[in-house]
């Protein structure tokens, strides 16, 4: 099995606040990792460093065998900018609040990067976008603008937008937190289907049942450290650490 992500010893602080203290995990191609943890534990920051929205302070990261940064004398040293860019194309990120481009139609939201970044021809990009929209069940929305869509539909467009660039690994940062329960189900279904197709994914979520059902591996983070990690059945069904137990219990209803 190919290793998709190898992260080790990741450290990050914002000013005097140590947000990530020593984060390490690996993820194999075709598997799904879920990350849970209380607010402020550093889940988003971890995803944002891997997807290059933030810089690491220390640690090392390999994505699909390419080194984005490595630890040299206690400092993260990054690859050359061209290499960073190429690695960035291997990762995709789906945001909590979608971040669609409001001035582009749904179709153009999905074709723009294909054309401008990957230099794909218009016909190809549009065909690809339409296939993805069909898969998401919203092909009829192609000509509409984001504001005309429900939150669940917008999130499906943003997933299609990320998938259109054929990332090797896709990250989700609380993809359903801005949605009501019914729309949440729509999105979870889409992610579940991607998992069944063996898309490599990392999902930060507060949906415990969903996380347990779709992931191959689960991590519980708190205050910048990984408190516990293991198979979802162990982590959710029989957590070893007291903090994990408390956190998961707080979601039982």
């Amino acid at each position: 099995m190919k290793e998709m992500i190898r992260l080790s010893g990741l450290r990050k602080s914002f000013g005097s606040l140590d947000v990530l203290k020593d984060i390490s995990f690996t993820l194999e191609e075709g598997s799904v990792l879920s990350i849970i943890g209380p607010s402020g534990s550093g889940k988003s920051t971890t995803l944002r460093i891997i997807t290059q929205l933030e810089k690491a302070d220390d640690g090392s990261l390999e994505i699909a065998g390419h080194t984005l940064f490595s630890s040299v004398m206690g400092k993260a040293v990054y690859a050359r900018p061209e290499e960073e860019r190429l690695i960035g194309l291997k990762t995709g990120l789906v945001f909590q609040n979608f971040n669609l481009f409001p001035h582009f139609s749904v179709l153009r939201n999905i074709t723009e990067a294909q054309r401008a970044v990957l230099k794909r021809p218009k016909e190809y990009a549009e065909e690809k976008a339409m296939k993805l929209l069909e898969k998401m069940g919203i092909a009829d929305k192609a000509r509409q603008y984001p504001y005309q869509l429900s939150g669940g539909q917008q999130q499906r467009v943003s997933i299609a937008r990320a998938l259109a660039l054929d990332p090797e690994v896709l990250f989700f940062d609380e993809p359903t937190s801005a949605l009501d329960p019914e729309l949440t189900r729509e999105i979870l279904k889409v992610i579940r289907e991607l998992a069944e197709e063996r898309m490599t994914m990392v999902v930060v979520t507060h949906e415990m049942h969903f996380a347990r059902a779709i992931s191959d591996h689960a991590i519980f983070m708190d205050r910048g450290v990984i408190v516990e990690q293991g198979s979802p059945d162990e982590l959710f069904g029989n957590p070893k650490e007291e903090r994990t137990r408390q956190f998961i219990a707080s979601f039982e209803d």
Partner: protein
Amino acid sequence: MQGLLLQMLEGTVTSLQIFFLTLLFSLPLGFVVAKGRMASFAPIRWITDLYIQIMRGTPLILQLIFVYFAPFYVFGTSYDRFTACIVAFVINYSAYFSEIYRSGLQSIDRGQHEAAKVLGFSKAYTFFHIILPQVVKRILPALGNEVITLVKDTALAQTIGVAELFRVAQTASSREFSTVPIFIAGIFYFIMNYIVSRLFAIGEKKLEYYR
């Protein structure tokens, strides 16, 4: 009467020259100023801020006089009134436009930049294709107000002796002991501004296709 109208049309051409030349230089310069105002290097930010404060905190009429006469006192040479007038208008309007741009740029959600970055768009592509179109939509009303003010402000050029519409009207008025030329000038300004506001309304309408 026909001679008067002809003279006033000539004045109008000068007013329009001031108007268009000011826009030509200050619209892009405003962006440079806005960038300076948002620079991460603090001294650049302070200097730009001071410049904007001075431009907004003192009358344009005073700035016109200063720009025209200061070189005379400093270097002992004077220069073309029209050039001085354009310089004064440009440095004044760049400051106002820069604040409009800045408010527009800062109103764009950070998520737009982040989504663009994650999708691999270059910085330039992100600015011109993702951010700028959204900024334009948001600042168009404020920009419209400022451009209308500019049409009226061109009348101030007469203080340093530029023969624009208002000066022509005033001269004619005192020569003929009549307020008619002033009234006609008012109609001219009104027509110019009517066109400007129609154009901005069309622009705003065109951008109504999204929210």
